[in-house]
């Protein structure tokens, strides 16, 4: 794979906060190919959100080279090459669902008519048709997050950056959102970089899991997820799924960071019990 063809290419990226302060990231090399679904996993404070923000040109790396869609990240940001979703939906209370989704389009001067058509399509995609005129605070947490995903997809960006998007949701909603996200990913063909600290979620969603170590954040392993697609509820019961979860867990433990207990899902706990952890 050549670096030119990668959607995101990171070479020796490091980030230090403050003068001689905390080293959040050290020597990160990573290429994300078009259409990939890459999860970044690691314990709290391993710099995975920082890495995502560097890709999005929301913060600057201290050292190293970054290219997004073959451009410097700043150019990519100004060209609206990516959409971003945070852990909280970050919707504007004073705008209806429709207007929240249309905000990025409004800012680039799309006509009212065009915006309306696009918002319809997006609401359809995230299964929220009929909620155009609702205000964010009239929706449940899962629905709010779907609005936020629709907003990130408004430009049909080639790249979707997601920072623990389902971290604040309950387990049932989270599993449903995982399925929906996979459907959206398959329909749109975008490349996704997904930050999470749930091993099960990372394995279920990804084509590749990037395992990171705690401070300073380094990549300690890459796990290819060869589970068949389309993935569904039966995937979670497959033996291979459990195996891959174990692989990721072992890689995490080798990296010296095993503090993921705060978000352990049911499967993870069952598997952990089997292994006598």
């Amino acid at each position, binding site marked *: 794979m050549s670096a030119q063809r990668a959607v995101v290419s990171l070479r020796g990226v490091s980030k230090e906060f403050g003068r001689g302060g905390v080293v959040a990231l050290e020597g990160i090399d990573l290429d994300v190919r078009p259409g990939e679904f890459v999860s970044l996993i690691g314990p709290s404070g391993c710099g995975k959100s920082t890495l995502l923000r560097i890709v999005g040109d*929301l913060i600057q790396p201290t050292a190293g080279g970054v290219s997004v869609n073959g451009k410097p990240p700043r150019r990519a*940001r100004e060209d609206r090459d990516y959409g971003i979703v945070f852990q909280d939906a970050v919707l*504007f209370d*004073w705008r209806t669902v429709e207007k929240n989704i249309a905000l990025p389009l409004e800012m680039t001067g799309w006509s009212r008519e065009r915006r309306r058509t696009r918002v319809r399509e997006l609401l359809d995609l995230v299964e929220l048709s009929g*909620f155009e005129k609702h205000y964010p605070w009239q929706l*449940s947490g899962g629905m709010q997050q779907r609005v936020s995903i629709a907003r990130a997809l408004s430009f049909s960006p080639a790249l979707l950056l997601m920072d623990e998007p389902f971290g604040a949701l309950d387990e049932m909603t989270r599993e449903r959102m995982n399925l929906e996200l996979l459907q959206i990913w398959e329909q749109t063909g975008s490349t996704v970089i997904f930050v999470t600290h749930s091993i099960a979620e990372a394995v279920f969603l990804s084509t590749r899991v990037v395992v990171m170590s705690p401070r300073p954040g380094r990549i300690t392993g890459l796990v290819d997820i060869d589970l068949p697609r389309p993935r569904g509820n039966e995937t979670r019961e497959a033996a291979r799924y459990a195996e891959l979860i174990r692989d990721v867990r072992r890689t995490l433990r080798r990296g010296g960071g095993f503090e993921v207990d705060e978000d352990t899902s049911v499967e993870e706990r069952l598997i952990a019990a089997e292994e006598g952890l």
Partner: protein
Amino acid sequence: MATATAARVREQAPLAERLGSWARQAALLLSVLAVLWGLWELFRWAGEKTSFHLGQFTVNDRTFPHLHDIFGTLGEPSRRNGPMLIEVLWDAALVTAKEAAAGFALGASIGFLLAVVLVHSRLLRRGFLPYIVASQTVPILAIAPMVVVWLGGRGLPSWFSVAVIAAYLTFFPVTINTLRGLASADPRALELMRSYAGGRLAVLWRVRIPTSLPFVFAALKISATASVVGAIIGELPASVGGGLGNAILNFNQYYASAPDRLWATNLIAATLGIVFFLAVTLAEKLVVRRAPENVA
């Protein structure tokens, strides 16, 4: 879908329900008024009965007029063969209201613009904020005559000086609260705007100002009543005839013979303040769209 029905429940209540809640609110206010009235008269009655006194202070018609006398005097002529007191005070209230409204508009605009400028520069904030605070520690009574001298004789109507004095009291809470509101934008909302390549102006218009609105309205409520006080005080040195300030000064001189009139004037001044406050509250209801739990 279960989530959809849950969401519907949180929509606005039907009209009948809202009318009911207004009726309850009105009943509550009237009951509180009745209780306060009762306490006033009870204190008066008990004070006279026991010849209560505190130093020079005793309870009698002069210090504690009956509330019905205060209301009653509104319907009596203000001077022999003159118009009723309520008519005189109504005209005075209109004069003061004009000054206060102009002062409020001026002060609120200046206060808001000042905050918008200051939020963008740490240097200006650090340089100017202490002086803005200092401006409010100078008593308004010391400023008022100077404003009148500066602005007088420049072809400006004399009520404009009063409006400027009212504005002086109005701008401060607006600046401080707006500054706080503009700075309280969610950092991730700012990141989001950055990801859309939005500049300072877009961030200001689409994020900071809408975020600040609940703060701004909290300040405007304070300023609304302050502008009425500012106008009344401003009338004294500005020698603007016909305002409530003049009425207060006037009835103060005749307090010994007709205490009810000063009390009645205070009542009208208070009512004017309440009207200003309610106007801001109404505007807030129309402008600010927030989750019910985030509305003060």
